[in-house]
């Protein structure tokens, strides 16, 4: 149960933020690409989902 310092040090800790930065930027590039290239009709359909009710 002791949650205090299992290790004295971690080697290559610098890779952590680097990996997360790459994941972050990569994911955003993909989403942005999708937003730009995506099918307009598809977005239009999704956009109207809340209004497609009979009342």
């Amino acid at each position: 149960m002791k949650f205090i310092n299992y290790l004295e040090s971690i080697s290559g800790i610098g890779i952590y933020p680097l990996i997360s930065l790459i994941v972050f930027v990569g994911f955003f590039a993909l989403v942005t690409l999708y937003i730009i290239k995506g099918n307009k009709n598809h977005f239009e359909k999704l956009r109207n989902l809340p209004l497609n009710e009979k009342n």
Partner: protein
Amino acid sequence: MELQKFQYDNKTVKMFAYATILWGLVGMLVGLIAAIQMYLPSVNLSLPYTTFGRIRPLHTNAVIFAFVGNGIFMGVYYSLQRLLKARMFSDLLSKIHFWGWQIIIVLAAVTLVLGKTTGKEYAELEWPIDILITLVWVVFGWNMFGTIIRRRERHLYVAIWFYIATFVTVAMLHIVNSIEIPVSFWKSYPVYAGVQDALVQWWYGHNAVAFFLTTPYLGMMYYFLPKIAQRPVYSYRLSIIHFWALIFLYIWAGPHHLLYTSVPDWAQSLGVVFSIMLIAPSWGGMINGLLTLRGAWDRVRDNVALKFLVVAVTAYGMATFEGPMLSLKSVSAIAHYTDWIVAHVHVGALGWNGFMTFGILYWLIPRLFQTKLYSERLANMHFWIGTLGIVIYAVPMYWAGFMQSSMWKDFTPEGQLKWQFLDTVTKMIPFYIARSIGGTLFLTGAIMMTYNLIKTIKIGTFLEIEEDEAPALTGEYQSHSKDHWHRWIERKPIQLMIISLVVVAIGGLVEFVPVFLVKSNIPTIASVKPYTPLELEGRDIYIREGCYTCHSQMIRPFRSETARYGEYSKAGEFVYDHPFQWGSKRTGPDLARIGGKYPDSWHYNHMLDPTSMAPGSIMPQYPWLLEDQLDGNSTMAKIKAMKRLGVPYPDGFEKIAMQEMEKQAKEITENLKKDGIETLADREIVALIAYLQRLGKDIKAEVLKAEK
């Protein structure tokens, strides 16, 4: 294609709506009582149960988890069914969810006023309730995913993404932050200590704001705003970006609550960077909401629900501009610990959550009861009185925060602190009075709404059976060759949940792992020793009475703070603090170095009547501490628990803990006797004095040694 007939479950929506209104009134009333105690401490009627330190957590928990919580479920249960063209998965689960949540609220209210608390802000509830919350939350998720699986609409509208992210992230936050070992049925210690506890706690605290007060309400904004305005959201593309950017960035921002504290500098910087980036998705969402109304602003004039929603979205914009600004270290240096933060959160709570909920209720209740709102005029009055309430609440608090901070930092030309801490307190009183007037107005508005809605319910008939029809989804989806990867996520709730979880887990891991694993992040200090049994008991009294709601134990490395309180706080000082007690507000002075500053008798008299030692003090009186006997029944269990958590008490120490405790208590009573105070050694006050006199002592010893 054959159309399937089905019925919506309106009853559960109605029940959650009623609970939202009821707990909203209770939460706001408790807030008002707490606000009045800030200038009239005697409003607590000298009862422990109604004292500020206990009802402040009651207020925050009631407003967040009872008012907003039920509001979330009301919004989700209504919109989810209609967006998916399906009834909620199971009526039984809906029932368990509803009643389970109400039982949690009642248990929370009872335990908090009784002083059963973990002492971690917004996570005060003790472990049995934590387990109950987990179970009910799972029921909610089960019901939601069951509905999603049985849906008749293939694509998941963006509102549902926000609901799914809410479900999975709140589950993660709640579990990670609540890992604690029980000492007794209503007492536990968190496994984390000091800096680590602080980091986990504010990762939780910040993201409770993000994933309980924000994402579900954004989902509701994306459904109800277009619905009420009868036009689709401005940009669906923007909503996709909004979603991913918001959940990705939010999770990192927690450490901005800990700027200039003993948390490692790199963690603080990470928090700052991500907080500043957060303005982009937040404002993207606000703009998306407001632009939905472009060309339709005339509808806002005639529709009171829309009025509330517009102010709500605007308040969201203001609060999310202010948030990143407050995360700048130089701004935090001024605002932290002051009433500025109180103003900031109330713009969010009253404006964004409050007004969004009111707007939805004004639209939903007449719809559920197939009638028109009883009085549009009364609702409009509510709108104006509520808006005025927010302004009269926020403006004095901003002003007070600024003034407090500049007085704390003021030096005379001779280089002395210009103001006693007490001066900075008494100067706040007019602002506290103004704030309670603002709060009264806001509450009055809510009472008017309740009356209006009850009248509406009386004239209408409840739409118990609401039928709809839609074709069933055909077994396999025919994906066309050009299908895009993101659509794969849009169609699949489980994928969406897993990817959301990965996205939110990364931020937490990158911040926690180094702090937990790398020793150099928390340098130890040789003179820092574990608490004695009596001090530990005193500390638990400190936690029980909610002292952390007004006192910090964290001296920031500023001249104005070291001159007032002493040496700034170091990470190594807190290694035995389960939980940490840094606090987030300084209504009273910091206590990190209070030990040895005054004699024991000063504390004794001060707890009996604070104004006797500090004329003009607004601290409540604690006469019961002088009378109540210390409950030493669990001292042994407490020492054992601490040992399991890694606190280095010697072997067999728990067996001699009682003797040690009596010995130290006797020393304190003898000290008190010298000053003419007779007290029994087994009273709670003795333990509390022992704890207060210990605070900061270890580091003072270190300094003395260095000087020699």
